[in-house]
């Protein structure tokens, strides 16, 4: 067929599974390979795919690895019907993939900038893709920071990979958790700015937004990428605003229920903006202009 039928997934085999976190809302990273060697997915960091479990349905996921790493990966949190089925699959099992969808991060425009990656929970999936992309093109960019939060230390994904980046000096990493654990420096969520911040500490207890404030992320020649639960995004933006950041410097990703991914099913719109094709990446300036339809 000359024209692509966008509803037909390509069959892909799971070639490796990494158990990132455990528990009820566990996260697993799946690496997949297309069965048909002619199928190639050209994608940008921040783009998404519909992943099928045949007979069960499909769901939208961020591609969680950078295109520079040569593999197609998804990091999936177990939350419902399709994601539960995905978590039961084993290496060698087959899934369906269609995409890539969405705009992706405008990495070309970011050249020369310092970048703060700010992620919470499964929001680390798209951040990992763009962060690894930037790290792999480090000479084009300025200083890099990662602030990554989860509920507990056991809920942090991509541990070994992030540790390696940090140790190699590629990026300045700060981890935060909600509940105190030994060895994690407590920050004051009520008075973030007054929190004692020791730049040599890497592990904090406190909200991600608190760490952002305590760390005093500087807006000069910088931009921030924030992905995570809505409340985290909101509080982090407030923290950055207090530090003098402009709306245009802040990038985030939006999520809405999606079925088609190609702007037809009428489900993912916020006002006239279709998150599946116009997003999921938006600057906060763009988000602010959207209608109150969320």
């Amino acid at each position: 067929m000359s024209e692509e039928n966008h509803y037909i997934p390509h069959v892909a085999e799971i070639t490796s599974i990494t158990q990132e976190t455990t528990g009820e809302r566990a996260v697993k990273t799946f690496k997949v390979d297309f069965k048909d060697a002619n199928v190639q997915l050209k994608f940008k960091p921040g783009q998404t795919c519909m992943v099928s479990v045949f007979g069960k349905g499909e769901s939208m996921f961020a591609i969680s690895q950078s295109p520079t790493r040569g593999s197609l990966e998804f990091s999936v949190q177990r939350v419902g019907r399709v994601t539960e089925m995905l978590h039961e699959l084993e290496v060698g099992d087959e899934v369906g993939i269609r995409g890539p969808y969405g705009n992706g991060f405008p990495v070309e425009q970011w050249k020369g900038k310092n970048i703060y990656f700010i992620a919470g929970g499964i929001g680390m999936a798209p951040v990992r893709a763009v962060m690894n992309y930037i790290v792999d093109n480090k000479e084009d960019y300025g200083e890099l920071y990662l602030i990554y939060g989860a509920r507990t230390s056991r809920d942090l994904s991509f541990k070994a990979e992030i540790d390696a980046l940090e140790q190699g000096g590629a990026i300045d990493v700060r981890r935060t958790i909600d509940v105190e654990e030994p060895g994690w420096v407590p920050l004051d969520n009520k008075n973030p700015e007054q929190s004692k911040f020791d730049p040599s500490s890497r592990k904090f207890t406190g909200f991600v937004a608190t760490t952002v404030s305590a760390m005093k992320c500087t807006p000069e020649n910088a931009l921030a990428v924030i992905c995570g639960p809505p409340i985290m995004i909101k509080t982090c933006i407030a923290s950055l605003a207090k530090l003098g950041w402009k709306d245009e410097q802040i990038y985030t990703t939006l999520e809405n229920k999606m079925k088609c991914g190609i702007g037809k099913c009428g489900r993912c719109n916020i006002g006239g903006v279709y998150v599946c094709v116009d997003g999921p990446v938006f600057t906060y300036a763009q988000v602010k202009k959207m209608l109150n339809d969320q």
Partner: protein
Amino acid sequence: MSKYILKKEKVVDALNALGNANAVYIPVKNKRGLVEYKELGRDAAAADAKFDCRPDVPPKAILFPQTQVLFTFKKVDGKIEVVPTEPDDREKIIFGVRPCDAIAIAVMDKVFIGGKFVDTYYKARRERTAVISIACDGPADSTCFCPSTGGSPAATEGSDVLLYDVGDSYYVEVVSDKGRKILESLSASLETPSPEQEKRKDEIVRKAEAAEGFTRSITAESISKLDSSFDSKYWDDVSRRCLSCGACTYYCPTCHCFDINDEPGRKRVRTWDSCQFSNFTMHTSSHNPRTAKAQRLRNRYYHKFKYSKDNTGRYLCVGCGRCIALCPAGLDITKVISEVK
């Protein structure tokens, strides 16, 4: 533009002749008393065609079926093979379409074929479909308001042939090449219009251009009020009576929201859905951007008159009036938009 006369007494023969080489759809009364499009020879006889009213159900499903199997899959030696549904490749003619519904097809073309992503299933049907419309001699129904949306009872957009009812005959106007080819196959039944018939046709066009007889309308001024009324309490008031039944969306010739699900029998199916249903936008986390009736109703009106206009340059409403005629709660889109505050 070529013009002909088709005597009404020859219409049955003409339909049957077309039916030999095409799937022909005509408006007929169904068991529930609603006029809808059925396939000639399969579910309808040419003599039952009802050309004197706006059909209650638009021809939307001929191009965008209510249920569409996207693909099936099978396991061969334990490996999955996806089998896309063969596109429906029969040549089709929809006969007796109202101008508003023909424009609706042009609008749907923008949604499904225009833009970055082409919908393979819609396109396959659309490319093989010809539209033969009948101009309305004044509003076909008291709920009609096509002129307010840029349409007209004698509009040609979306049609391949336009017929005008000039008494005992149809005055036949060729609109597209596709239409010309169809008429070639009917040439034995076609005659040349008389000056009298020309005059009757001109009168229908004159009335259409003057929007004569319409009792309902929406002004551009009230539509522009949508720009600043999104957060208005008005939507709470207006939606109070709404039952969220989705009838307005199912009968609308331009509503196209759908759902995709895997069904038993190893198939993935696309089905019509409605933005008026409460779980339509529900996230897995149970957060729902449009949890309130008012938000959903507002989305429909805004999609029709603002989002679509902003994004594609045209309204997603053709003024057919069906959602007015069929709303069990009596909501009237012309009134709702006219009273926006």
